[in-house]
């Protein structure tokens, strides 16, 4: 297992001067899992975007350290896998085309097609790999997102509402992925499902965090 640390330092985000959250700090090491809990609209997705480096915080910073080396903010994406409702596949391409495309844009060195097929098998969409994504059911799309997020074997896996749109069998696969990730690196889950809480080494509850007053 690689040595990975992920730390958020006093993160704050405002939209139109409304504070979404403030003073969020935590630090994670490899083998740990972290749950961000909160109702819809509590700023979970915004926090997830900031943690993945997709959105700049109003204040504070995200630092990632891999094997003792600080990762430059614009290279964060190389170490992160994200599963989120805000992250879609290219619907005019097939499942396997999407995955190989992602591998090529990332510039992966390994055998992309082999790895992609392996993942598609694991997530039980191998039979439909050559069909366009737009013909997939929402559950299948969700499983394809898992495959896409794991293709580059990320040190940090971030899941935003991972179990939505999935049936019993799909949820079992997600649990398996979670366990696997904890053996590979860091796992961050944003959720409002009580069930997910038991996979957490530590929990951040955004409902309690939310400041009542706005700052100016």
């Amino acid at each position, binding site marked *: 297992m690689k040595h990975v640390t992920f730390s958020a330092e006093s993160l704050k985000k405002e939209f139109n*001067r409304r504070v979404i959250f403030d003073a969020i700090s935590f630090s994670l090491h490899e083998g740990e899992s972290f749950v961000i809990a909160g109702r819809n609209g509590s700023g979970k997705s915004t926090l997830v975007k900031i943690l993945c480096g997709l959105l700049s915080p*109003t204040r504070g910073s995200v630092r990632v350290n891999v094997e003792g080396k600080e990762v430059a903010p614009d290279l964060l994406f190389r170490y992160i896998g994200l599963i989120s409702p805000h992250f879609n596949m290219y619907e005019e391409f097939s499942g396997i085309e999407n995955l190989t495309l992602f591998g090529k844009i990332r510039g992966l060195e390994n055998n992309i097609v082999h790895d992609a097929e392996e993942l598609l098998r694991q997530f039980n969409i191998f039979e439909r790999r050559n069909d366009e994504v737009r013909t997939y059911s929402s559950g299948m799309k969700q499983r394809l997102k898992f495959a896409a997020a794991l293709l580059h074997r990320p040190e940090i896996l971030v899941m935003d509402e991972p179990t939505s749109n999935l049936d019993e069998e799909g949820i079992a696969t997600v649990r398996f992925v979670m366990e696997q990730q904890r053996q590979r690196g860091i796992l961050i889950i944003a959720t409002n499902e009580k069930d997910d809480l038991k996979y957490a080494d530590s929990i951040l509850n955004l409902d309690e965090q939310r400041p009542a007053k706005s700052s100016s």
Partner: protein
Amino acid sequence: MKSATAKIGLVVWLTLVISAGILFPMVAAPQKWYELPIIPGLEEKARIIFFHVPMAWTTVVAFIASTIYGIRFLMTKNLDYDLRSVSAAGLGTMFCILATVTGSIWAKFNWGSFWNWDPRETSIFVLLLIYGAYFALRSAVDVEEKRATLSAVYSIIAGVTVPFFIFVMPRIMTGLHPGSKGDPQGAGPVVQFKMAPNMLLVFLSSLLGFTLLYFWMFNLKVRASRLEFHSQQPQE
């Protein structure tokens, strides 16, 4: 511009400049220090230079100020710079309209029609379009931070493309503006002057006076906008 004396001084300065601009007589062979030379073909109309050119100049100052505040916003993400950028752009629009309208009226009597697509007319028209586009863009974005970022980026892009007119214009058309006549180098949007010294003095005093007036107006506008900004309730 904090102290009252500076403001009163500016008002007196501008009053003197405007009076001089209108009252100094124009004679064929100037003898006294206050006598301006007659420029053939322009006569009394030459006095426009004291009032119209400062408007155009201030427009450019406002445009540059707006772009610089845009850059500073992007560097600091401090919304106060955005507020200054908008204020500069708003004032720039006003000065731009004044320069366009006054120039157009003058053109009617000097060149026979209100609009001639002279290089400088075209350039000021483009500035007007940029200001229009800038405010159209701002009204189309509702998150403050995003609005500030996008409009700053747009003003920088506009800021780097506008100077190309200086190179483009002389290749396409000959200028009508005084200062560009018969002078192939002078057809761009930048004016080159050959003026009698006393006329030049009034002109430069006027430029200075109106520029300072612009900074005063800018200061007032920014202060009002800041108050507005902080008294507003954050939107849900």
